[in-house]
């Protein structure tokens, strides 16, 4: 038995030369698809409603997002809160917010700007209406009520 046992066979090392290529491929994929979250949410992550008739929003730079939901910070009370950029605001601040967003894009693109309202399904229509009235006053008429695409909604 010893005759055979003496010959110790060494395991050939796995060739890892192509590993960087694979990793780079993945890296590029994620780099291209990534969109960084610019704001951290002060409200609880809104549960978006489901809908079938949704349209995708194109041109991310022309979309300004308004969040509506319950505040994470319990000290602020339990009612619906509106978040603009990265702070809790009132409907009256919407005007300034929209004007600020407008100043970021060129004038020719202003009519194509869309406001996306990401509201929690449990929030009340009254809050949304307050925002809508302000948007109407400032002339930001294109609106998208953010919802997830689903094949069929339960009745």
């Amino acid at each position, binding site marked *: 038995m010893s005759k055979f046992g003496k010959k110790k066979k060494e395991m050939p090392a796995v060739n890892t030369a192509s590993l960087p290529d694979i990793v780079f491929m993945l890296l590029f994929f994620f780099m291209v698809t990534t969109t960084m979250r610019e704001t951290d949410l002060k409200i609880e992550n809104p549960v978006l409603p489901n*809908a079938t008739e949704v349209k995708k929003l194109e041109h991310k730079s022309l979309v300004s997002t308004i969040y509506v939901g319950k505040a994470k910070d319990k000290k602020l009370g339990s009612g619906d809160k509106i978040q603009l950029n990265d702070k809790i605001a009132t409907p009256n601040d919407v005007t300034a917010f929209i004007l600020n967003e407008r100043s970021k894009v060129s004038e020719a693109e202003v009519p194509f700007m869309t406001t996306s309202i990401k509201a929690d399904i449990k929030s009340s229509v*009254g809050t949304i209406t307050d925002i809508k009235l302000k948007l109407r006053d400032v002339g930001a008429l294109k609106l998208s009520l953010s919802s997830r695409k689903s094949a069929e909604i339960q009745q």
Partner: protein
Amino acid sequence: MARRETPEINAGSMADIAFLLLIFFLVTTTMDVDSGISKKLSEKPPKDYVPPVIKEKNIFEVNINRNNEMLVEGETMKLGKLKEAAIKFIDNGGGEGKIEDGVSTGPCDYCKGARSASSSDHPNKAIISVQSDRLTEYGMYIKVQNELLRAYTELRNRLALEKYNVSYDQLEEDYKNDQKNEDLKKKVEFVKNSYPQIISDAEPTS
């Protein structure tokens, strides 16, 4: 002259660097594309604006109360029936269409409704008014909007299939891929204007 070989660069740590970057992007990535129900708000009316008189029969009234119950044309209705009711109303075609630039659009020749005298005259006159309470849940509101939009989509698809043998969704998709195609544009516009989406949000009761 001795030829010097260029020393090879050690690329062993390349994978580590790439991995580091990869993990960073993996963590920060969010793949969701923002999508939603698109709405066009009406422009702010001038101070001395007198709203036009609209016949009662051309208005389809949807009320949602604070308990998320729905009242359609004065009767309670389940959400599942809303689409059918809306289609019946829009597609009624009981009279003349509205006058555009002094030219009457005439009676609706593509409508397949009952042509009842007590319902809407023409799809371009049919107004859906959604009135909700301030305390209505947003989820319910979206569901109602969605059902109404579905009614329009169904009618548009039907018309497009009849006229051009292709659904409206497909037509829009094709147009998006071929923006310069005048023929397609005309088709899309025609179907769109045949069944214009007139959903108005009445100010909520408090």
